[in-house]
């Protein structure tokens, strides 16, 4: 458990560093930087180090804290392969008949030099929904009755998270690169929101991931990205019907030999529109009026049915 907290602390430190990295020259600057990379609320169990140099010596094989991190071995501007990408649409509207949506991430690899033949190019694409805190509870038998006993609170877990790749994720990506860019599903989860007082918190988060995968909120689609001639790629994502409103984040990573060589990120707005938006705003801005409206609606419907039925019987 200690190791886990340490791990989280390290991850938080790393994430902050990744943000500091200078943007690649080929990236469209505004959207990629508009979304903050880190909105983690560090819990008391895993305080983020104020100064990245203070980071606890890493357990995994992280690069030395002294070397400038957040950028791969080669400086970004001269990266031989860069990603140029786009989206089928940059907004999803939730209407009354909303029943999920398709989103297409597509793009190409831009390079000045011939395609390196020494290694295989892989592409990873992710879509991430707004994060929310979640309490995970475990039931235990006490006096013959099943009651909620232990609980773990995850400070921020994405409400939706999908990863699509060209090949099985664990084969193409280094674990420390994964921890740094938070790509695989477990790493997308942020710090625990309060001191963890259970023996094995990982069991809890694993159970949560399993449940979310079962309901389709979290998805890992190995091989769902198609890459043509090591240059053109596309990834189709199916957004489920139970979408939460907010700014979603799409990311694309180019991977060679387990290392991320370039990345792209853009926001995707998911918004309620029309009647949905009006009702939602009314419920939160004018709760009294909303409540009275609901009651009036109920009373009128009740009275209407009663009157209609009486008229029907009279005939």
């Amino acid at each position, binding site marked *: 458990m200690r190791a886990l907290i340490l791990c989280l602390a390290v991850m938080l430190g790393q994430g902050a560093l990744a943000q500091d990295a200078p943007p690649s020259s080929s990236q469209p600057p505004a959207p990629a930087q508009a979304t903050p990379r880190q909105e983690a609320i560090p819990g008391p169990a895993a305080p983020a180090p104020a100064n990245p140099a203070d980071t606890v010596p890493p357990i995994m094989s992280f690069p030395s804290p002294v070397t400038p991190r957040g950028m791969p071995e080669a400086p970004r501007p001269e990266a031989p392969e860069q990603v140029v990408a786009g989206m089928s649409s940059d907004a999803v509207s939730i209407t009354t008949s909303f029943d999920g949506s398709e989103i297409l991430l597509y793009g190409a690899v831009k390079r000045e030099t011939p395609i390196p033949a020494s290694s295989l190019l892989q592409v990873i694409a992710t879509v991430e929904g707004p994060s929310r805190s979640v309490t995970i509870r475990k039931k235990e038998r006490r006096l013959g009755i099943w009651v909620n006993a232990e609980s773990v609170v995850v400070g921020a877990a994405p409400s939706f998270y999908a990863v699509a790749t060209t090949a099985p994720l664990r084969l193409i990506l280094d674990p420390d690169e994964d921890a740094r860019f938070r790509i695989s599903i477990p790493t997308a989860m942020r710090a625990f929101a309060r001191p963890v007082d259970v023996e094995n918190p990982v069991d809890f988060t694993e159970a949560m991931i399993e449940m979310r995968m079962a309901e389709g909120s979290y998805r890992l689609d190995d091989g769902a990205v198609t890459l043509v001639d090591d240059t053109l790629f596309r990834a189709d994502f199916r957004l489920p019907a139970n979408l939460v409103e907010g700014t979603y984040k799409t990311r694309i990573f180019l991977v060679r030999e387990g290392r991320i060589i370039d990345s792209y990120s853009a926001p995707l707005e998911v918004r309620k529109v029309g009647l949905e938006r009006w009702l939602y705003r009314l*419920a939160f801005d004018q709760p009294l009026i909303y409540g009275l409206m609901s009651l009036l609606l109920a009373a009128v*419907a009740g009275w209407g049915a009663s009157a209609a039925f009486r008229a029907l019987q009279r005939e």
Partner: protein
Amino acid sequence: MQIYLPIAEVAVNAFTLIGLGGIVGLMSGMFGVGGGFLITPLLFFIGIPPAIAVATGANQVVASSVSGVLGHVKRRTVDFRMGTVLLIGGLIGSALGVAVFNLLQRLGQVELVVQISYVVMLGVVGSMMLVESLRALSRTRRGGRTTRRAHGWIHALPFKMKFRTSGLYLSVIPPLVVGLLVGVLSAMMGVGGGFIMVPAMIYLLGMPTKVVIGTSLFQITFVTAFTTLMHAISYNTVDVMLAVLLIVGGVTGAQIGTYLGARLRAEQLRILLALVVLAVCVKLAMDLFLTPDDLYSLTPGIV
């Protein structure tokens, strides 16, 4: 046909919801129960977040109760005086229930307390009703007269009042207490409380069954309206889209239920209601004692 619910933030099939409302409305019209004890668990089951299920369920109960009570008013089977006394108790109880609920939430385990009290209450009420109505049924079969029970200690209480529609001359204390208890339950479990009130009115207050249902619906209408408003204001958990779909099914069901109820004999009605109450009780008890499919559960937010 899928419909996206603006507050619950999930998409559900509109016809499932209408059907659900219809079944619950049918029971409401037949037995004078609001149906909250059925609709709330059913909404959990189709994936509506619990807080929204409770609040919206209350809103749906308002509609089906209004529909049902109007049918009863036409038939002159509502004791308004008794209903008002019960209602006063109910509103006080509802406020008390919210306080108790908050206290339990601070201590944790609110879910467990609610579940256990459901099992105990439904079990006791259901079996009492079943035994009593079976006995009454066999008595009428033998041709004997149903003798009204004597309520010695209840009649000894002060503050007596005449309830003409029910044909009772009774102290206001027992109906106030019954209303109060039901109000507490309503706030804590998100139910109208008809399934507790109907038997209490029959066996404790000795009201005639025909009057009981209309009067209970009258009280439920106002208590659930109060609950809905409280939920909408303090927690923003009423989903009006969900409510409308449930209501469309519910009001239709309630009318059919009232019609059927008028056709059935009082004892038969009571046996049916007892069986429904016992079935829900057994289901909830099984959830407590059997090993759950999934040991883990997710709740949004930090609790």
